[in-house]
């Protein structure tokens, strides 16, 4: 850790200088899902390098986002029909990340302007893209809100104001916990530096999440050799059933 920081500082001194720029470090650049995987914490840390003394007109703030692979999602709404609750209306949301966390040095509303949020799609509602609702749904907004609410409750969407820290307007870090139900893919990590609500600098890098070892092997077998995988599942089932009954017959004797 200390060595990494030292290396970072060296980079700051050696690199050609522009305005305020981000130099980033990650505790892991790759997350390996093993059999005993139970979520993971990633520490995102770095420094701000600058060519002239910091502009003091407004305090520097840091926003860090981590977004999982995106995909379309259907949100359903139930209604009572003949006394039974059934799904009646649905809205397809074109792109919603499977995981999304926003860590910042302060409440987003105070450190990020509405226009900058629109441009960079930083806050949770902006990170979700919904083009339009079907004709039978007048207002799609409750559906978007529901998606965010449900995913916030399950811990896949997180708003973490005040969890990022910034020291001396130079060194920053944030710890983001990734849940146990992580899917594979590229988790795009973005860092924004803002001053007075405006983004002054940004940086992005992917964190690769992938299954390894037995997990990887089983997953690929189930996709590529589906018939064999099915037979293997059945063989294990029959063997376990037969094994248990033989074992119990032995200990009863």
């Amino acid at each position, binding site marked *: 850790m200390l060595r990494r920081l030292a290396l970072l500082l060296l980079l700051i001194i050696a690199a050609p200088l522009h305005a305020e720029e981000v130099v980033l470090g990650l505790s892991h650049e790759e997350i390996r*899902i*093993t*059999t*005993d*995987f*139970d979520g993971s914490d990633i520490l995102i840390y770095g420094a701000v390098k600058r060519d002239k003394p910091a502009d003091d007109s407004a305090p520097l703030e840091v926003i860090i986002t981590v977004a999982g692979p995106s995909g*379309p*999602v*259907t*949100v*359903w*709404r*139930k*209604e*009572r029909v003949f*006394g*039974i*609750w*059934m*799904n009646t209306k*649905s809205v*397809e949301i074109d792109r919603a990340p499977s995981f999304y966390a926003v860590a910042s040095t302060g409440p987003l509303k105070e450190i990020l302007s509405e226009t900058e949020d629109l441009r960079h799609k930083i806050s949770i509602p902006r990170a979700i893209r919904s083009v339009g609702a079907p004709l039978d749904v007048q207002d799609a907004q*409750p*559906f978007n809100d*529901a*998606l965010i*609410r*449900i*995913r916030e409750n399950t811990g896949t969407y997180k708003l973490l104001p005040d969890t990022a820290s910034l020291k001396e307007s130079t060194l920053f870090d944030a710890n983001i916990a990734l849940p*146990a*139900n992580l*899917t*594979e893919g590229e988790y795009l990590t973005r860092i924004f530096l803002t001053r007075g609500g405006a983004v002054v600098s940004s940086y992005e890098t992917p964190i690769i999440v992938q*299954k390894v070892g*037995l*997990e*990887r092997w*089983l*997953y690929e077998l*189930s*996709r590529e050799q*589906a*018939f064999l995988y*099915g*037979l*293997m*599942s*059945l063989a*294990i*089932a*029959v063997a*376990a*059933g*037969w*094994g*248990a*009954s*033989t074992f*119990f*017959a032995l200990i009863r004797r």
Partner: protein
Amino acid sequence: MQIYLPIAEISVNAFLLLGLGGMVGVLSGMFGVGGGFLITPLLFFIGIPPAVAVATGANQIVASSFSALMAHLKRKTVDFKMGSVLLAGGLVGSGFGVWIFNLLKQLGQVDLLVNLFYVVFLGIIGALMMVESLRALRRSRTQGPVKAHRKTRGLAQTLPLKMRFRASGLYISVIPPLLVGLAVGVLAAIMGVGGGFIMVPAMIYLLHMPTKVVVGTSLFQIIFVSAFTTMLHATTNHTVDIALALFLLIGGVIGAQFGTQLGARLRAEQLRVALAALVLIVCGKLALDLLLTPSDLYSIGAS
């Protein structure tokens, strides 16, 4: 101990899975039901995606049923001939059921229809079994042992294609068992279960098979139908999670052994009352879900 499931893509507690499998295994051994109607909703509850839960449930049923069947084989309480006839009907029925299921899926609302099927069938079967077995219990208490049930000349005797089912002590037409197998196959495919909870009462009340052989014979048929379902899911949807299945079935096969022991100790009438109560509880829970205002009107569906 947490374990990450490769297909379900979720990390769950291994002991929770062992416990769930064990509980369902006990029921499977006691009543000859595969336990699909219990394990699938329980897996939903712990956060396994529905498609994975249904497919892996089928694989788990193969294991616990096989373990229970071994115990029944030793006691010679399996009617292979009857089982094969039921199976022949069952495979045709489940093919037909999958076709209906896909048709319903195109029309939407398949979840609701599956739930309604559960409520209606569990409700009818549970209520009938409860009334009948309570009456039998009361009769046996007031008049001593029950008289051997009357030999009625029902449809099973009058239809052609008669066959002797020695283990069941029956000489009946193959048409009723074929139809029972077919109907159970259709329902099983639509509801995503082995179908034991429909088959066991059907064998007792429609085919008049002796309770003693009903459980073993039903298990025999369930193993093949669920193996068929497992293969279907593994090859078309890739939703069988072998790691999840392994933990469920370790619990399941051990549970099933205890279940058969327990079942052998209870009297037939008591066994039926207990099964009826279980069926009614599950039915009640599902009915409440449909009737009560849900805590969140919105839900996220697969697209």
